[in-house]
């Protein structure tokens, strides 16, 4: 399946992916309205500083521990292989946060449920906003074997 891959060789640590993510999932169609004066809670997180940096988000593992361990069945894989969260079902037990080996699932802004990258298939973007907004192709969306 097509996944987001991160190549730290090209990551500039600009954090724009985080902002693009927050915007894409804000439900607001204007970035300024969506983000101005707000603390963002992106589903992708940039690690590192000036010399080494990279973004981390859900790997959509084919053998996903988060799905297996989910106590409510809120995490599942959709027909395209995307690991998705049903926030209706999620009770915020955070077992997935315990399970994810990459630390790619995080509490939602109000900590009531979890949130994770769903490849922007759940918003208006249609393609991952972090990939589109990455100024140096450090984040790509492609098929890899």
């Amino acid at each position: 399946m097509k996944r987001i891959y991160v190549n730290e060789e090209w990551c500039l640590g600009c954090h724009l992916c985080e902002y693009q993510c927050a915007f894409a999932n804000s439900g607001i169609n204007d970035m300024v309205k969506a983000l101005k004066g707000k603390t963002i809670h992106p589903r992708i997180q940039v690690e590192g500083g000036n010399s080494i940096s990279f973004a981390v988000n859900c790997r959509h593992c084919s053998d996903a521990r988060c799905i297996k361990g989910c106590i409510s069945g809120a995490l599942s894989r959709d027909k395209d292989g995307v690991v998705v969260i049903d926030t209706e079902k999620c009770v915020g037990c955070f077992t997935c946060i315990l399970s994810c080996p990459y630390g790619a699932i995080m509490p939602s802004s109000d900590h009531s449920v979890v949130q994770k990258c769903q490849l922007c298939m759940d918003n208006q973007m249609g393609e991952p906003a972090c990939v589109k907004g990455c100024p140096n192709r450090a984040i790509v969306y492609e098929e890899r074997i």
Partner: protein
Amino acid sequence: MNYDYLIIGNSTAAVGCIEGIRENDREGSICVVTDENYTVYGRPLISYLLWNKTTEKNMLNYRPSNFYKKNDVELILGVRAEKINPDKKTILLSDGQEIGYGKLLVATGSSPFVPPMKGLDTVEKKFSFMTLDDAKALAGAIDKDSRVLIVGAGLIGLKCAEGISDRVKSLTVVDLANRILPSILDEKGSGIVQKHIESHGVKFYLNDSVAEFKDGAATLSSGKKIEYDAVVIAVGVRANTSLVADAGGEVNRGIVTDLKCRTTLDDVYAAGDCAESLNSITGQKQVLALLPNAYMMGSAAGVNMSGGEKLYDDAIPMNSIGFWGLHVITAGDYEGEAYVKRDGSKYKKLVTSGGRLRGFILIGEIERAGIYTRLVREQTPLDEIDFEAIKERPQEMAFSRAVRKDDLGGAK
């Protein structure tokens, strides 16, 4: 009737097993027998149900409604499996039916343990807290004026307390141990969580026990008297091993299994809370009664039952639980050298031994805990990572460039 695959029990391990089987075998017939009258649900959700964090509908949607149909599974509800006949490869059901199997999975789970307590039989409203029916019964028996006494300050008792906290007048928890959640927390951690729970109106009597229930009041060993309208007994659970034991299979605290989840009976497998598995950190066999583990073990069993090969050899104790917004994530055990950081109600303890992370406790600050879990599960040599950085916070950066490349750039 005869099925290629027969599963006793219809909880998480059973689902894991069905999905494991279907990875290999789309055709073989599968039958699930359960004494409950529900399709599968996550047992731990019952406290969230009472706390209105979920609904029964959502709960019973642990797998989509077409799950059994899609996987071509025959589901027999409300019937107990009474006996396994390993020679004939059949099981006997409580309705008299005898069903044959090619491979059998025992996923019978566990039952609440109710110790003998004086006067318990006089308590009119007494409950366990294990199943959806338990939760419904409890919910039906309490109201805004209820004073509820919970015996047991473990995971089940405390989640029950949280679940019903908005529905009742008062909550009192009694436990023989001198601290709460002793199975997953160290003393400091217990103290922090206890304080937090107390701030939500729960009263604890620790190092104490009920000497006698009488006339709507429990007299504790300490002499203290607590009036109640309902009692929840949550002192522990016992694995349901009797089916296998009676059939001549080996059982200890749980059903004995090998790494392929096979019991000592031919073609009989076991998974979930009824079974023992290998704790990969200690190398000991034990019952690791946790939902994620039940799934993994069931899934491994399913793969092995259907001709695949999957060793269930990376199980570790682990827990994620929250009480009134304070989240606790733990894994492994705490035998070793400890690094401790405390900041108010935030608490972190990392325990190392032999150059490996052996266990951890996170309270309050649980972000990215899974990276710690991974270190425990994989027993990563700490000299291969930047342990100082990872002590500070869980991060990919602590791994080598090669590992990061594989993590973030490799197909998963």
